[in-house]
Structures are given as structure tokens and as C-alpha cells.
């Protein structure tokens, strides 16, 4: 009887409860887990995944998916680093175009937006399933990254650039600020704006949305562009953190991102879920990664445990939605 009374709250806060249980377990097993410095470590490490996963959440809410985020991240990071380090040489005119920090970052972000927009355009214009269109982009963007970097890392962009990934502001790491701002903006968009309501409506029932006058294609292109721009933001953060653009940066990031979205309770069928849930999902993955290393669990077992957690999260989610 009493349990029934609490049930709605249990369901609503299930990700949070899972996170608390996880933290409790790890802190019992390791006394190093619940320290300030470890907390900042985890937050800094997951800020890239949160940034990407916010974009992924918007896409999944429209019942789409984006597999290209890891490659887009690598390409935009590499281009930003390359522009900062080498500029664009124009041998024919014997000219050399240099870039300021802001300029290089803006171009990197714009590239991310355009690649995402291209995904959206292909998906809406040619009716290509998102899985296929973004799978193609995954390969294309990775290939372009190798072409641009010639397979070698681009390193040494300087301290100013490294500040974005490694610096602190008002006692909080800069990447955490950036991801928090991204989350706040996305939260407002999904909850308070017309675009947000359209996103949920399209995921709930696309043809009904179309019939009721929503420009479905436009909304989708906007959503994929945002995701591309956020992947670029992630790329700039990773590059700045290492002070080095690695050609194979972001490999399999799409999987971590989808995992965060799913663990956070967003339905892959679209129309149901929230940005805040995804943030919790990303924190759960980050805490799990951190905890398994703190406890020195064998690398083989770590993968098994992570998979099991994802499975468990989805099963709990399914059984709850049945009872609604």
C-alpha cells in the first residue's frame, strides 16, 4: 500500500536514485571516491559527453539518431587546431592567412553546425533513415579528419587555447561551465519554447505533427544542426584539454552518448524524455568509469559491467512505462 503511494516518485527520480545507489556502493568500497578533487575529475571528464549527449537527446526526441558525433567532433577539433597552429597557406599568392583564437573556434563551430545541417538535409530531403545518413557521415567525417591531419596529431596550440579544457573559473573547471551552459539552454528550449514542443510532437507522432501545420523538415534540420554544433564544441574541448588534436579522437563516442541518453530515460522511439535525464545518464556512466578504475577492476570486466548497467536501465524503464 505504502509502496504504491511512493511509486510515481520512484519512477520519476529513478535515474537519480540509481546514481545515488551507485555512489553509495563505490564510496563504501573506496574511501577515495567521495572527495572534492575526485568529484571535479569526474565532472571534467564527463563534460564532453554531456555536451554531445544534449544534442543527441534532441535528435532522439524526434525519433532520430546521430552516429556521426564522434567523427564530427574529431574533424572540427582538428580543423580548429590546424587553423590556430598553421593558418591557411596560399602558396599561389604567396600569402598566409592566420587565425585568432576566436576565429578558429568560430570556424570549427560553424563547420559542426553545417555538417549537422547536412545530415538533417539528407534525412528530410531524400527520406534517408537517420541511422543510415549519419552512418555515412561517420565515415566521411573520419576520412576528412585523416586527410586534413595526414594521420598525425596536431599539437602545441598554446596556453590560451588550453585554458578552455584545463582552466578554472570561480572555482569550477571551464569545461564544466561550458557543459552547464549548454544544458541550461537546451533545458529552456525543450521546456519553454515552441521549438521544444515541436520536437516532442514530432517524436510522438510525425504525421500528426505534419498535418497540424508544423514544418517537420525545418525542425529536424535545426535539431541536427544543433547536434553538429555541440559535437564541434566537444571536439574543441577535447583538443584543448590535450593541447593536441588526435586524428582518432572521439572514436565510439556516439555509443557513450546514446548510452547516456538511454540510461537517462529518453525513449529511442522518440517523444519521451528530457535533457536533465541525459545529464544524469552521463553522470552515471562517468561515475561508473571512475569507480571501476578506482577499484582497479580488470579492463575486461569493466566492459561487461558497463553493458549490464545499460541493459538494466532500459529494462527498468520499459517495465515502468508498461505500468503507466
Amino acid at each position, binding site marked *: 500500500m505504502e509502496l504504491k503511494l511512493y511509486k510515481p516518485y520512484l519512477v520519476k527520480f529513478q535515474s537519480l536514485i540509481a546514481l545515488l545507489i551507485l555512489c553509495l556502493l563505490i564510496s563504501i568500497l*573506496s574511501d*577515495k*571516491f567521495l*572527495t572534492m*578533487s*575526485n568529484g571535479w*575529475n569526474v565532472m571534467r*571528464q564527463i563534460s564532453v559527453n554531456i555536451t554531445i549527449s544534449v544534442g543527441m537527446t534532441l535528435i532522439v526526441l524526434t525519433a532520430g539518431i546521430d552516429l556521426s558525433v564522434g567523427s564530427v567532433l574529431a574533424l572540427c577539433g582538428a580543423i580548429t587546431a590546424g587553423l590556430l597552429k598553421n593558418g591557411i597557406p596560399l602558396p599561389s599568392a604567396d600569402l598566409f592567412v592566420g587565425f585568432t583564437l576566436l576565429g578558429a573556434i568560430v570556424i570549427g563551430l560553424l563547420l559542426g553546425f553545417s555538417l549537422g545541417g547536412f545530415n538533417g538535409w539528407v534525412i528530410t530531403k531524400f527520406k534517408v533513415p537517420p541511422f543510415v545518413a549519419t552512418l555515412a557521415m561517420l565515415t566521411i567525417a573520419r576520412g576528412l579528419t*585523416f586527410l586534413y591531419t*595526414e*594521420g*598525425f*596529431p596536431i*599539437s602545441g596550440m598554446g596556453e590560451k587555447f588550453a585554458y578552455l579544457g*584545463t582552466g578554472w573559473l570561480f572555482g569550477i573547471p571551464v569545461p564544466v561551465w561550458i557543459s552547464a551552459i549548454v544544458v541550461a539552454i537546451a533545458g529552456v528550449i525543450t521546456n519553454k519554447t515552441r521549438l521544444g514542443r515541436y520536437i516532442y510532437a514530432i517524436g510522438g507522432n510525425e504525421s500528426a505533427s505534419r498535418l497540424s501545420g508544423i514544418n517537420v523538415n525545418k525542425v529536424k534540420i535545426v535539431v541536427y544542426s544543433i547536434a553538429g554544433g555541440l559535437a564541434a564544441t566537444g571536439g574543441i574541448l*577535447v583538443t584543448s*584539454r*590535450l*593541447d*593536441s588534436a*588526435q*586524428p*582518432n*579522437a572521439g*572514436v565510439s563516442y556516439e555509443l557513450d552518448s546514446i548510452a547516456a541518453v538511454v540510461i537517462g530515460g529518453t525513449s529511442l522511439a522518440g517523444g519521451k524524455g528530457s535533457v536533465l535525464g541525459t545529464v544524469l545518464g552521463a553522470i552515471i556512466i562517468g561515475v561508473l*568509469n*571512475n569507480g571501476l*578504475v*578506482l*577499484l*582497479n577492476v580488470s*579492463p*575486461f570486466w569493466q566492459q561487461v559491467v558497463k553493458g549490464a548497467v545499460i541493459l538494466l536501465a532500459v529494462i527498468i524503464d520499459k517495465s515502468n512505462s508498461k505500468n503507466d
Partner: protein
Amino acid sequence: MKRIINILFLLVLIVITGGCKNQSTENTPKKVAVIVSTLNNPWFVVLAETAAAKTRALGYETKIFDSQNNTALEADHFENAITSGYNAILFNSTDADGSIVNVMKAKEAGVPVFCMDREVNSTKAATSQILSDSYSGCIAIGKYFVQSLKKKGNYVELLGLVGDNNTWARSKGFHSVVDNYPGLKMVAQQSADFDRNKAMEVLESILQAHPDIDAVFCGNDAMAMGAYQALAAAGKANRVKVFGFDGADDALQAIKEGKVMATGMQYPKIMAETAALYAQKYFNGKRDFPQKVPVAVEMVTGENVRNYITKN
């Protein structure tokens, strides 16, 4: 009727491809395929491009095939190379055991295979194997490790991809020395997938559990650079000694600046050029090649790093 046309079409196709295969045996320049495990890593890019450049310089046609760390894709490359009439294969395997079948396929088709850097676990498959001696290289690093730590201290090992032979060859070489000293204690052993970012994040977490370590041994230089960044951010870079492997440019620079203690210098260019020269000798009629040609890994430390930076 339609089915008959289809079958006829298939027959025509078989005849045509069969015909092409026979054509390329005489008069045309010899063709050499370079099949490498991955182009996702600068080290392998150097290996593949040197092999291709050397074969081209010797007057042969050449093409690079990227197996993307996928043994199944590698099998496709072998089949394509054999059917499209390549006369030799310079090969860097994805898997020591899984790649044997592929090499055997080439052998049966009369195409010699010369392995570069990575071994296949069979002495009867490849014509010759020119290998980087990772195991011995890491024995040398292990000895230097013991000496630098004065036989006492806590250390962390960062492994590469756990499914990769090189990961374990390096780890085993290192431990064959270091495990003999009870004063040296490994407090954590974790994988960072040969990746700089992953190494930084993993070591950040490890430092929370073990803030008092004395050294980090990394399975490659990218991880050593990531480990150094984690240590620098935690203000421990001066106290903790970092060891890498590969001889990558940025690691050599870091050794020069005293950030990294040592690395094992591998010679991808020598291996690739030797393999190309062997292919030439094979075309000229030579058949008795040594099965294994070890190419030594040289240890680079702060004392001799100057010789390596000026060399390139």
C-alpha cells in the same frame, strides 16, 4: 528465361575476370600490395607510406590497403590483391593468429608475403617476417625502470588495447624484469587503448586512489604523453617518472625536456624498406629467406635523445 540470362551473364563475368587474371603475368610491371592493420595511428602511416614509397622507387606498381584493425576486412584485401594480380604483399597483420589463414591463401596462390613489424604465429605461412622486437625492447626499458627507481616504489601500468598482441608483448617484456624486484609494487594496471585522452582520464582517476605513486609505465608514447598531462595537472610531474614506447616525435621532445624518462625507439622505416627489398630479391629469383628478421628496438633516454632528434 530471366534466370538463364542471369546465369549466362554470370558465366561471361567469370570468363572475363579469369581472362584478366592471366593477362597480368608477363611484361607489365610487377605489382606490390601494401596491406596494413590500420592508418588510424601515425606510426602505421609511416610504415605503410615508407613501404609504398620504397616499392615505387624500385620500379613497381603499388597500392596501400587499410584493414582498419579488422581481420575480416584484411581477408577481403588479400582476396582482392590475389585476384587482381598483385605479385607480392608487404603485410602488417591485424591479428597474430587470425591472419594466418589470409597469408596461407596468398601462399597457395603463389604470392609471397613479407610481414612487417607484427608477427603471424606460423613459420610456414609468410616468406619472411621482419619484426620489431617489442618484447626485448621492453626488457631494456624494464631494466632502466628498475635502475631509475632504485628498485623501490609504487607504479601504475597503462596497457594498450587489450585485444592487441603488441600490448601483451610489451607488458610481458617489462614484467619479466620488473617482477623480480619485490620492492617495486604495481598498484594499478588499467587499459587506455593506446589513446592519449583515455590515458589522461584513467590516470586522473588512478591518482585519486593512489596519490603517492612513483612511476607510470605506458604501452605506447601517446599514452605516456596523456599520463604526463594528468600528472602535470595534479602537480606531480616532477615526482613521478613516465616511461613510454614507440619513439614518437612528441615523446622524443618530451624526453629532451625531461618530462618523460625513456621510450623504446622502433624503426618502422627500416622494417618497411627491408620488406620492399626482399620483394625485389624474390622477383629476381631468390627463395631462401630467413623466416624471422628481428629489428632491434633502441632505448631512448635523456642521455642519448639528442642523437634521435637530429636523425629525423
